[in-house]
């Protein structure tokens, strides 16, 4: 028992998990409508897309690079799949094509990030992909998709929304992939010391490439679910998620320098961001103040994480 506590305490996710617990308790006290089963389900459903996106991004962050094209990828794939389905393509085939587009985008991003700094490379691809989305949609919005597709986003399995199930599966897969497989260990090793990894004859390019593919496939999946949930697709719909995805992973304690963090913290990060908006709606915080509150939460969370980590490091020295 003591060991478990010790390991939780030492994990990077510790402070974000505590933050999440404190936020839930505080919200329950402030707003009675917060602590209802229905509201909890609503929060999990809303967090699902952010969870899928930011869990995928975590893989890239762990290698010490950045992917800023996540939001655009999600929006673009959502649009393409909506167009395909509108042109009477089978839903399963269209979904598969969507995931394949994710693989291709991941390969392009990963290749570019091997040559350029990932931050700049994916900032560029973000524009390109968003531009492609506008071309695909020709400025229009697609509305009213067949129920076979929209059910993915709005349906339930028993009392649990499909979205929550999809998100749980993705998170579980990524958790196992990152912490219990050879690829996962290589991603961590490369991220914490790229030079050492190279000398250890690790196929570093392939590791980075894999991380980007994981990230873009998650983005593609989330984009399709976004379209299914909205029952509509427009080129700009991924915009909301772009930087929020980065924030969720970083709040969750995943270091931008790479090698430290993981999916567990990202779950906490995504839930924190979702709950903050939920509680602001429920308590009626004026619209003008909402950006201020979200920003403050992000800064406070990352600040706590950074300061405590510095202290621990200086203690060890």
């Amino acid at each position, binding site marked *: 028992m003591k060991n478990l506590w010790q390991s939780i305490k030492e994990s990077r996710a510790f*402070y974000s998990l*505590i*933050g999440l617990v*404190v*936020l839930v308790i*505080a919200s329950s006290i*402030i*707003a009675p*409508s*917060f602590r*209802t089963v*229905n*509201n909890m389900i*609503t929060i999990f*459903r*809303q967090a699902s897309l952010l969870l899928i996106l930011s869990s995928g991004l975590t893989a890239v962050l762990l290698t010490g690079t950045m992917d800023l094209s996540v939001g655009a990828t999600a929006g673009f794939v959502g649009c393409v799949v909506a167009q395909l389905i509108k042109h009477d393509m089978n839903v399963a085939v269209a979904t598969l094509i969507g995931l394949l587009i994710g693989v291709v985008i991941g390969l392009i991003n990963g290749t570019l990030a091997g040559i350029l700094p990932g931050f700049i490379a994916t900032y560029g691809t973000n524009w390109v992909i968003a531009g492609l989305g*506008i071309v695909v949609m020709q*400025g*229009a*919005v697609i*509305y*009213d998709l067949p129920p076979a597709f929209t059910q993915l986003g*709005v349906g339930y399995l028993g009392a649990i929304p499909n979205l929550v199930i999809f998100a749980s599966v993705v998170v579980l897969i990524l958790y196992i992939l990152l912490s219990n497989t050879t690829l996962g260990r290589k991603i961590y090793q490369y991220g914490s010391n790229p030079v050492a990894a190279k000398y250890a004859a690790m196929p570093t390019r392939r590791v980075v490439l894999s991380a980007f593919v994981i990230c873009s496939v998650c983005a593609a999946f989330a984009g399709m679910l*976004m379209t299914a*949930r*909205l*029952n*509509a697709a*427009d*080129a*700009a*719909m991924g915009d*909301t998620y772009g930087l929020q995805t980065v924030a969720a992973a970083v709040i969750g304690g995943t270091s931008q320098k790479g090698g430290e963090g993981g999916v567990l913290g990202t779950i906490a990060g995504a839930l924190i961001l979702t709950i903050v*908006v*939920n*509680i*602001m*709606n*429920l*308590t*009626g*915080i*004026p*619209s*003008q*103040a*909402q*950006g*201020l*509150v979200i920003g*403050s*939460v992000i800064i*406070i969370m990352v600040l*706590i994480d950074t300061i*405590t980590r510095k202290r621990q490091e200086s203690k060890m020295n």
Partner: protein
Amino acid sequence: MKKFSKLVLSFLLVGTVGLVGCSNNNGGTSTATPEATQEAAAPAATQEAAPAATQAASTGLSKATVLSADQLPITGIGTTVATDIKAKGSYKIGYIAKNTTNPYMVAQSAGVAKAGEDMGFEAITQAPSTADSVEEQVKLMENMIQQGANAIIVHCADSNGIMPGVRAAQEAGVIVLTIGTPAAEDTFLRTGVDYYETGYTIAKDMAEELGGKGNIIILEGPAGAANAIERLNGIKDAFKDYPGIEIVASQTANFKRTEGMSVTENLLQKYTDVQGIIGANDESALGAVQALKAAGVEGVLVSGFDGSVDAANAVLNGDMFESYNTDPYGSGYIAAAYAVRYLDDGVEPEAKFIPFPTSNNDPLINSSTVQSYIDEYAWFNAVQ
């Protein structure tokens, strides 16, 4: 343990911010600036049919002067617009949109181009390559002045940012007409909708439909956006005349469908007894429609603004109650008509801000008008 207590403390701080915000908002109305509402309330009370005007958010701009349909230089609305005015010389009239991606802007550009065909002038339509870049808009204005444009119509990306271009045009003797977002100072003419009036008209109609009773949710536009604030003031002022109507929540959905959906989902957790939802644009209203559907809630009236394709279809299906046809196509057309009339005969417009469309032009799209809107005059038909 010390660290832990600090952590709790910081969260309490965030919580306090929340509580303060909460107590400020108890009345459900908090955002309107007092001058704006007072000025707006007076004409709304005196003029029953057309709640004419509000002061624009920035001071010093002219108020809206609403003309009846037969006082306008054009007839019709949307794709049915027409005019008798013909260009008596060879004029160049420039139009600058905010971007090339929004169908709304594309339709406005098409309206100016159609005006060029009908009236016989050369229409130069352009837009910044970076969406909503006011700096580029200013450059485009300067280029048009160089090319010898006689008039420039611009949908400003920013009121203050566009001023260098406006000044350059004035120095060169080129008249400037704005649509939607005005320049920071009066120009030759401002047209497009009066955002306050759109909000007032939509809210009043919802209140009437509800028999003057009900709980309303408002999905606001982006915090600080002048057009969204004017529209919100119009909505709130209209509901003031109905003591049975209560605005239970007014939260931002940033003009976006995704946020309209999630904010509505959140609010439905607290407010189970809601009769109406007004989105500050069609996108946020359609998000509300999705949220209601997903939650299995029926019988809530949802209204929005712009008369987009999706909104029109939603009204047709009975998912949405109403939308306001803000007619970008006709706005571009009427601006060109005022410019040509002036270039022909030196006739100045009756006022500095003549909104179009207004409630005098039958802008409401609801179950009784939606079919003919889609079939006959919807602005989006011009760009599809």
